[in-house]
């Protein structure tokens, strides 16, 4: 299914632009949640290691030529 991405959606509408970036924004939100809990609430900085692979994937995704859109 993911190989039949629909084209031609009006991307200049703000909500459409936001939805286009959903995968990157959601992964970022997960990393923010991890960082907040690890550093501020639990004081366990070692937990941040769990976010390192996801942060790398997010960086690769943002650099993949679509600017985080899908």
């Amino acid at each position, binding site marked *: *299914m*993911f*190989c*039949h*991405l*629909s084209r031609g*959606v009006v991307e200049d509408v703000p909500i*459409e632009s936001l*939805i*286009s970036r*959903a*995968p990157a*924004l*959601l*992964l970022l*939100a*997960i*990393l923010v*949640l*991890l960082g*907040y*809990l*690890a*550093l*501020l*609430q*639990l*004081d*366990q900085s*070692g*937990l*941040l*290691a*769990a*976010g390192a*692979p*996801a942060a790398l*994937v997010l960086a*690769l*995704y943002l650099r*993949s*030529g*679509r600017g985080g859109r*899908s």
Partner: protein
Amino acid sequence: MSAPVDIGLHDYQAFLTAATVFAAAHAYRKLSPFFCVSWFGAGWIFAYLWTQARPAPEVVLLPPLVFYLAAALTKGLVETRASVQGNHLVHVAMTGVLSGVVALPLIAVAGAMGWSVPRPASRVLLSVNGSWLGGPTLDGVWLWIAAGGVFYGAYKLFDHVGLSRGWQLVLLFGSTPFLVMGAEWLHGLA
């Protein structure tokens, strides 16, 4: 440092609910309403059957969300590389791997906070202990890789064998118990 706001279980459940709605909106607008319904519908059934914890909202919401994010990220990463573009096996394998990567921070957080995760995993694989991964074991990551790969593999298979949408739905929803068995079998191979 002290947290200005304490995040509890209900906040985590609200976060996962909002994230699922956002991901479903992405599926609805960027793919199709059929895709949105079939993915998250089958995903929730799969999660309900796959979980060994009490089927709480967070453990049922988590798997389809994680698999969806993994599949969407895979698409973004793979589509720009001509050598692997359109290769279904690469898509499925990478979605599996990214399911583990996306799930890792969430199961680490859930473990540290004492919240439920769908399935516990405590075996030590390749001598990698939990401190390397912020708490979860490599077995926990492999669990999600197996589940994500099997779920997306089945979804892709039913999508590409030329079935009508009605039959796709019937087969996808009806196969979820077998997908759980497949994920358990794959997880047990390591």
